């Protein structure tokens, strides 16, 4: 079936409609290339056709390239060839003597943007769903179908770079201001309006207006100006990626090449660098992660989830407010707490979040009002009587959670699902006295909820499939990537984080410097160092977890450090009380100074140098080894879930692909060898899990093949 419909109208306008017969999205795949080329050639050859419109038969215009085509390229040469094919096609479009008008509605991503850049005229709808973005960089790649060459001259270098370097999403109004699109129109009659534009372009009565660059822009487009912009961009990319991600540099190289030697040279540069990136580990890890996340959006099995019309959130703290915020789009939400003060603060958090969305253009003012009206604060259980799902986000205290569960069961219907948002308390313990334990499970959100993409759903032994399907479907609809893990101490994420953070404390007790530990892990690829993370999460929380959880795996040599309880006892709580490992001043810029006073509680002031590699490895190995334990004990049902959870929940370096992919890349044998060496020197906590040893012995990988 042809994914492109070609209609030649009597007025001399040909309408090419992308309408993928195989799925809900239009995707630029190799097979589409062929159909597209013949459609363009048809348009060019037919003397009756004066102009053409590119449109979409789907809700989005073009969702980017087919990532499977990308992954199929094993060598740099194959990747370069794929890019060259794209260039040929884009060139045909860009050099067309007949005008092409892109009729844009919905998302236009990656190759889609590169394609519309080749059109004579871009007409976009003023709909909030209309978004243009070049997300290649987030997949470790570069826009390799001419994007790095065609975007800067159109919108100016200062606007083009953020789009390419961060994958920034541009809505239609902003796109018009930038000059990325030529005009806006309404969604209804889009194709007709585009056809009118096409006709007038062919007649010469409409000319695409060029955006007038500002004075600053004109200064920056002189050769020294450009050099300055590129230098600044390189500096900022280096600071942000710590040199771990090659894609942004490759993008800057392509831009520079084009500016210096012309677009043809730029296209060739795109081909070479795209091939190199695609063959590299970072891109392959990020692409796999993306595909895994897409897989995880699909239902687990055919169990029908219970529709959630009313959600109740118990506890209006920061977590509860976050859960409420991300749920308003899909259900009415009651937030129940014991104090109006907390409820008011919760309301403020939700309102400010919604207002931010109004500001960014994501929702209208009226939409904010509509969402706000769905939020009900309440002090009593009466208001949650009709809830279909209850997410409990009260303080991490087993007795309290049990009490809240009992009170909830007394108030709600028998079919209501109860989810505890706990990061470590076993669900079986929370549900020990439950009347309906089959309807109890864990929904472990990460803070701040609106920004953190992961939801860890914990299935206890008695949890029913319907309850699980309900929680998962709800999580997916909140926009979260959900992994389902088995109940147990710390589930998956907290369990693998715990030895990681503990080791950071052990290192400090051995005399490591706070900043050295954090720097080593950031250089390894974590977004935040473990010590800074403890300050953010709260030393009190850390001490609490250490106490509850610390001795669970004592027989494996994983006993918890006394550092956190000691610090907490001395009044350290981290950022929230301004007393942490770091000193929190008024200035938010620049590195925070270390609070040297903590060393007094961590083995004294004299510090010594511990090699960065050792620091990073000790922490990372403990984390990945614990992940393997989780797979071995079936807390995880697949390495995929472990990788996705590690990256999205804990910031495991994305370019390493997650704990399991990291082990596969390093090689199980090598990992075991290094871990045994640490075990020898530092204790049995480094002893590799059985599954890892087996993999090393048999030379197998966690991912069978790719």
């Amino acid at each position, binding site marked *: 079936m042809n994914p492109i419909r070609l209609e030649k109208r009597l007025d001399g306008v040909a309408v090419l409609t992308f309408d993928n017969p195989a799925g809900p999205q239009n995707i630029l795949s190799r097979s589409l290339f062929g159909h597209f080329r013949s459609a363009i050639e048809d348009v060019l050859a037919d003397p009756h056709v004066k102009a053409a419109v590119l449109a979409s038969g789907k809700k989005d215009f073009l969702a980017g390239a087919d990532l499977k085509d990308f992954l199929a390229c094993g060598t740099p040469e194959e990747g370069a060839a794929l890019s060259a094919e794209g260039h040929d096609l884009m060139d045909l479009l860009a050099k067309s003597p007949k005008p092409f008008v892109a009729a844009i509605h919905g998302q236009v991503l990656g190759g889609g943007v590169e394609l519309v850049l080749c059109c004579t005229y871009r007409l976009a709808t003023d709909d909030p769903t209309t978004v243009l973005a070049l997300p290649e960089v987030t997949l470790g790649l570069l826009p390799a179908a001419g994007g790095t060459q065609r975007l800067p001259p159109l919108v100016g270098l200062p606007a083009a770079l953020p789009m390419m370097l961060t994958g920034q999403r541009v809505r239609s109004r902003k796109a018009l201001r930038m000059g990325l699109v030529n005009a806006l129109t309404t969604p209804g009659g889009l194709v007709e309006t585009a056809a009118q534009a096409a006709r007038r372009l062919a007649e010469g009565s409409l000319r695409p207006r060029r955006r007038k660059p500002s004075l600053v822009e004109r200064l920056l487009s002189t050769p020294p100006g450009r050099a300055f912009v590129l230098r600044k961009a390189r500096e900022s990319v280096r600071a942000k990626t710590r040199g771990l991600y090659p894609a942004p540099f490759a993008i800057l190289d392509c831009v520079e090449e084009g500016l210096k030697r012309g677009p043809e040279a730029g296209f060739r540069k795109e081909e070479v660098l795209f091939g190199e990136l695609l063959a590299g580990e970072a891109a392959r890890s990020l692409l796999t992660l993306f595909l895994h996340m897409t897989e995880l959006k699909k239902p687990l099995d055919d169990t029908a989830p219970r529709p959630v019309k009313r959600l109740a959130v118990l506890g209006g703290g920061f977590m509860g407010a976050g859960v409420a915020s991300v749920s308003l789009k899909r259900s*009415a939400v*009651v937030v129940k707490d014991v104090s109006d003060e907390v409820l*008011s603060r919760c309301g403020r958090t939700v*309102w400010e979040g919604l207002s931010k969305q109004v500001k960014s253009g994501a929702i209208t003012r009226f939409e904010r*009002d509509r969402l706000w*009206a769905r939020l009900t604060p*309440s002090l009593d259980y009466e208001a949650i009587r*009709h809830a279909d799902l209850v997410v409990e986000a009260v303080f991490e205290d087993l007795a309290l959670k049990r009490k809240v569960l009992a009170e909830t069961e007394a108030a709600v219907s028998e079919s209501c699902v109860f989810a505890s948002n706990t990061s470590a308390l076993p669900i079986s313990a929370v549900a020990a006295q439950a009347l309906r334990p089959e309807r109890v499970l864990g929904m472990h959100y990460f803070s701040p909820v609106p920004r953190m993409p992961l939801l860890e759903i914990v299935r206890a032994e008695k949890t029913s499939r319907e309850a699980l399907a309900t929680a998962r479907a709800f999580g997916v609809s909140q926009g979260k990537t959900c992994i389902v893990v088995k109940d147990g101490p710390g589930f998956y994420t907290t369990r693998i984080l715990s030895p990681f953070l503990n080791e950071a404390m052990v290192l400090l007790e051995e005399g490591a410097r706070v900043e050295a530990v954090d720097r080593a892990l950031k250089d390894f690829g974590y977004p935040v160092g473990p010590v800074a993370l403890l300050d953010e999460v709260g030393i009190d929380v850390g001490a609490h977890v250490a106490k509850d959880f610390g001795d669970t795996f004592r027989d494996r040599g994983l006993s918890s450090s006394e550092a956190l309880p000691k610090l907490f006892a001395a009044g350290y709580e981290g950022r929230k009380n301004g007393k942490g490992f770091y000193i929190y001043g008024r200035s938010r810029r620049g590195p925070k100074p270390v609070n040297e006073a903590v060393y007094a509680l961590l083995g004294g002031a004299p510090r010594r140098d511990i090699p960065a590699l050792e620091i990073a490895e000790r922490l990372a190995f403990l984390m990945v080894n614990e992940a393997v334990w989780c797979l071995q004990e079936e807390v995880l049902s697949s390495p995929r879930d472990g990788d996705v959870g590690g990256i999205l929940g804990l910031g495991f370096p994305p370019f390493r692909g997650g704990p399991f992919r990291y082990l596969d890349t390093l090689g199980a044998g090598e990992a075991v060898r290094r871990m045994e060496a640490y075990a020898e020197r530092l204790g049995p906590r480094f002893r590799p899990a059985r599954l890892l040893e087996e993999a090393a012995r048999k030379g197998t990988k966690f991912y069978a093949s790719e």
Partner: protein
Amino acid sequence: MKSGRLPGRRVVVVDGCRTPFLRSGTDFLDLSAYDLGRAAVAGLLHRNPIDPKQVDALVMGTVISDPDTSNVAREVGLASGLPSSCPAYTLTVACVSANLAFVNAAHFIASGMADVVIAGGTETLSDAPIRLSRPMRKRLMGAQRVKGPLGLLRHFAGAKLRDLKPAVPAIADFSTGLSMGQNGERLAKRLGVTRADQDAYALSSHLRAAKARQEGRLGRQIVPVLVPGRFRIVREDNGIRGDSTPEKMGSLKPAFDRSFGSLTAANSSYLTDGASAVLLMSEEKARELKVRPLASLVSYGFTAMDPLDELLLGPAFAIPQALDGAGLTLDQMGVVEIHEAFAAQMVANLKLLESDSFARERLGRDRAVGRVDPERLNAWGGSLSIGHPFGATGGRLVTTCVQRMQEEGARYGLVAACAAGAVGNALVFERVEP
């Protein structure tokens, strides 16, 4: 209009609620009637296990219309979770706006045109639309046709300084030019309602409301409002003076006739912001949805009199009409909820209901309508104490009436109110056995 039972299917009230009623200029200062209406309707939807898709229509009353949301009911419906396919309209009949919204809703259901309707009202007097003066408006409208800055200058050259004085909407009758208070003063003097009668009535209203609030009765009809910007949760009415005394009442100066008057700020209702919403269904639909109805509407009265001499006497005219329609008598009404615009108006209406001569001369009846037992009247307070957001008060009256009927086990209940233009409304309810 005629007397008669509500024709058609039985219509039941399932639930009613309201926002807290706040003195204007307090915590709802920054909210519009649209915001308050949204809080009431969304609150009603939250506390009832019905799917918003089942609501067939929304009718709301409002008096001081906001030009931005002239059909405020429609905006409220869209923003409070009702589907966009649910039609909504706003009506205005002064202080009985919500009463008539309720009557309209009941007719939709009784006739079979709808199964589930929400009726209510919303009002903010914190943000009344203040207009430019008429001459200024005329000039501005004309300015649209003027060309060039010079022409514009010439166009405005004749404007007078006093044209800049804004026009504030008056709470006055258009036909008589008298404000409600001035007319109340007229009525009190005509019927000999004393200052002492009025103060005693008003005091009792405050004390009853304070008691009902303390016992949690008002709390059950209030949906809390989380006010954006202030981030305070408002759960209670703020005009109830539980600590009021006869001395305090007596110390106030008359408000409308400084020399010889008897109406004061304390025995008149005050400017209030708030909204209300009532859920109505056909009896069959309530059964089908397994929701518990509280009361059914038996009949109503809808009257109008002379706006100069009988402006505030709506209850005295509408009550007999509604009772006749129901075939019931005043003493059969176990619960009576009458809108308290002024204590003077309350005392006057009660007097006239008991008056044989009034019945003969103005109602064409042989004997007086009857005496309202003070114990049955406004037992949880009234507009004097709780407040009076014009367009919303009817929703509070209906809600209070049916809730009281359930609590007190009364078989019949009566709601009545007066309105500007000398319009009156009364509603007779019959309790639905649990």
